[in-house]
């Protein structure tokens, strides 16, 4: 019997036929979750944090990214890990509260880690020097209220393109976070969106408080 007609292959076709053609992009968790998703996701988070340190781009909140502030390397790495842990812990708590069926914590943490992989594109997009140059001009303008000399229009265009990439990647990341929560906790359809939005807001507040209030404070004190 060929592999394609085995009961396992037929069941796979049936299960996957329920998902849309864009699931590889917006819901990869149909085929990958648990530990595998966790290791890939954490690696991507750390790589994104490391790349972000070159352009001083901080993932300082579940939905935040800000550029410009100097910080030690570990702050960039810790921020991504804190974002992921906040999402994982909050959605695990929400899942335990609203979902009656059992689910695995490793799937919640694994899918939420992998859901942050668009951050890699954000970190890569901020690498070109034109982005950093324009950020410095914006910082100087905000301090002096005067446009400094040497503004290159090409830098402004590059900055605009980077912001567009950031926004698209952020929307993609939110969609992946929702898919991760939805597949790992399996909440009822009518509750899924509502509980996801509540969880996202809570995770954003907590991650922001930890990263900006505590981590940045420690980093500042250690300098």
């Amino acid at each position, binding site marked *: 019997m060929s592999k394609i007609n085995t*009961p*396992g*292959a*037929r*069941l*796979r076709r*049936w*299960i*996957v036929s329920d998902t849309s053609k864009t699931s590889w992009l917006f819901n990869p*968790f*149909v*085929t*990958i*979750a*648990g530990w595998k*998703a966790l290791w890939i996701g954490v690696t991507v988070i750390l790589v994104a944090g490391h790349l972000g340190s070159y352009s001083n781009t901080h993932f300082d909140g579940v939905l935040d990214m800000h550029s410009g502030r100097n910080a030690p390397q570990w702050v960039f790495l810790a921020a991504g890990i804190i974002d992921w842990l906040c999402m994982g812990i909050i959605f695990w708590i929400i899942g335990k509260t609203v979902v009656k*069926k059992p*689910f*695995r914590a490793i*799937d919640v943490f694994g*899918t939420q880690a992998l859901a942050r992989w668009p951050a890699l594109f954000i970190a890569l997009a901020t690498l070109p020097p034109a982005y950093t140059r324009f950020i410095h001009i914006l910082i100087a303008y905000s301090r002096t209220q005067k446009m400094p000399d040497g503004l290159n229009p090409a830098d402004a265009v590059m900055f605009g393109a980077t912001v567009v990439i950031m926004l698209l990647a952020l929307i993609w990341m939110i969609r992946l976070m929702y898919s991760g929560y939805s*597949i*790992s906790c*399996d909440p009822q359809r009518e509750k899924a969106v509502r509980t996801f939005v509540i969880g996202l807001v809570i995770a954003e507040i907590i991650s922001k408080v930890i990263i900006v209030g505590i981590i940045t404070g420690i980093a500042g004190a250690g300098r």
Partner: protein
Amino acid sequence: MKKMPTHCPSCSEQLTVRRLKCAVCETEVEGVYPLPLISGLSNEEQMFVLSFIKASGSLKEMAAIMNVSYPTVRNKLNEIIRKIEETERCQGEPNE
């Protein structure tokens, strides 16, 4: 494989078995026998339940066989459980 009809095409009520026949001696038995609960599931769902039993109830093994993630398999099982519970509610009492 032909799917046995479980609901009346006219009024959508659940069908019952009226006649059974031995394929060897052709003895026929008549009566009113309710269909087993599992017959209300689709062919694929029945195949899923059988695979689940063959895998000793291991969702992890099912996921490996089907090459999909663990929560995908578990959610499919939850879906089948919901369907069975719904059928039980429609029948008025659990099919034990």
